[in-house]
């Protein structure tokens, strides 16, 4: 991640601020920064979303392809995550420089979505034991301004919500199975992402913890706890990151905060997505032109 150099005095200022629930940019400890979401931005995908969280810019494209089912799960489709850290974000990501970070993000996303209630994979199965839809979720990181995990998970959820899978008709004919694609481009199947998780990263600063840390705050935090929280208030993945450690009791406080923040984040995200979906036809796509 991009390094920010901070003096001891600046660090103390931020730590004391976090204790008093007041942060350098005027937010409280449990507030996110300004967040902008736009869906269907790339027409070569089945679904896409672009998100801007302060300085963090992420573009997610979802492509669905027809493939073979895996032998372990003959009645299910698959979802695969790929994260690419573009060198546009920082020159350190050039070549293979961003691969470690990219792997961490994609592993966390895969783990967060690896439970049956997040996405119903059985709906993605076309012919049991033979054909299924494979959902490729490609995350492109264009600018880093902190909270990469949170922003990626929000963008992924938005892109999956936006995804439309063409409807297929299966006919069995003397042992052959034939697949027929619907002619109508609007005859599509949508994914139910109502229960998909959003990742909330809680950064431990001094004795308190903050949500959506800015780069300066990240520089004075030693340990982070990431929680993938669903709308129902369940955790689908958890991970500790960083070189510090937590007190047993502080983990409980962090879980409390994570639950509260995660549920409200999911709720407002769904509201935005539903309303954007409704206004889709009226809207003029801006993308990166503003």
């Amino acid at each position, binding site marked *: 991640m991009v390094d920010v150099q901070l003096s001891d005095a600046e660090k103390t200022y931020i730590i004391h601020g976090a204790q008093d629930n007041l942060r350098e940019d005027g937010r409280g400890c449990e507030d996110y920064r300004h967040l902008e979401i736009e869906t269907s931005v790339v027409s070569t995908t089945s679904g896409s979303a672009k998100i801007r969280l302060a300085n963090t810019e992420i573009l997610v494209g979802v492509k669905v392809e027809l493939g073979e089912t895996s032998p372990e799960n003959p009645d299910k489709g698959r979802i695969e995550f790929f994260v690419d850290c573009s060198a546009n974000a920082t020159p350190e990501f050039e070549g293979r420089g961003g691969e470690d970070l990219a*792997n961490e993000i994609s592993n966390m996303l895969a783990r967060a979505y690896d439970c049956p209630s997040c996405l119903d994979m059985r709906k993605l199965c076309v012919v049991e034991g033979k054909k299924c839809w494979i959902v490729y979720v490609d995350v492109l990181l264009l600018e880093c301004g902190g909270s990469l995990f949170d922003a990626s998970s929000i963008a992924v959820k938005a892109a999956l919500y936006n995804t439309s899978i063409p409807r297929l008709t299966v006919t069995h004919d003397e042992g052959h199975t034939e697949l027929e694609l619907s002619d109508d481009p609007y005859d599509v199947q949508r994914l139910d992402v109502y229960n998909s998780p959003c990742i909330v990263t809680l950064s431990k600063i001094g004795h308190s913890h903050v949500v959506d840390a800015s780069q300066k705050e990240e520089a004075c935090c030693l340990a982070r706890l990431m929680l993938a929280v669903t709308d129902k208030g369940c955790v689908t993945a958890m991970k500790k990151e960083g070189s510090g450690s937590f007190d047993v009791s502080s983990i409980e406080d962090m879980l409390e905060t994570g639950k509260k923040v995660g549920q409200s984040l999911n709720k407002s995200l769904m509201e935005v997505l539903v309303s954007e979906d409704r206004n889709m036809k009226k809207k003029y796509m801006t993308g990166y032109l503003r």
Partner: protein
Amino acid sequence: MPTDTRRITGPESSVSPYSFCKIQEPQPLFNSQDLRKDGRKCDQVRPIFLKTGVVSKAQGSAYLEQDGTKVICAVYGPRAVIKKEEFSMKGQLRCDFKYTTFSCKYRRQYQQDNEEKDYSVQLLEALEPAVLLHKFPKAQVNIYVTVLQNDGSALAASITCSSVALCDAGIEMYDLVTGCSTRLAGDRLLLDPCKHEEYSSKEHSEVNNGSVTVGLMPSLNQISAVTSSGEIQFEHLKKAINKCSEICVQLYPVCQQSLSKSVKENIKENT
């Protein structure tokens, strides 16, 4: 050993032999007397065997066995950082977690796959808080963890094993790190799960089904690693973390005993 992609190793179109396996009906994790398949109670941990100094070439090493889970760990260093870009005034830890190709039900590849890379990072972050990194500036310590046989709770076992190996190598530490994992199934907590008890996404769909792994520094009472998978409610998650920490504390004497034993033996040999 990289695989040769140009050589045709089999017929062009082949079917994995596993696809002919009968899919086993998921069996209940415990029977009516609350006993698990291997006869343990829900909150019973498998017996642990821990021995240090098993790799003679390494500065420190340890071997840990929990019934079917067998982990060996070797620690090399501190040694000088060779690459100039990786210069740092703090010491650095490097972790390499690997399943041997024959350790699991399905054969593993020689190269690290995503799961192993993920575990390497988690292991590193579990150990980092415990090590006095500023004591060996401009140098690095390499930790190689190899799972010889996997029967569940591999990450937890690796955490314990590698922290003991670090200690055996004489690396200064604030505390040992002990690991414990648990499987959540409804209201039950199955401590130290076996392979078949571990969480996998394909079985059930009810809430509170998942695994939690905790790494604890017992004398400081600080949690240095915590991960989970599967859908869990917050109350159950808290309960699981607390239960795991309790077990981690109980593991502490086992580690201490094996370390003091090896120190005693060393002294005896050298005098």
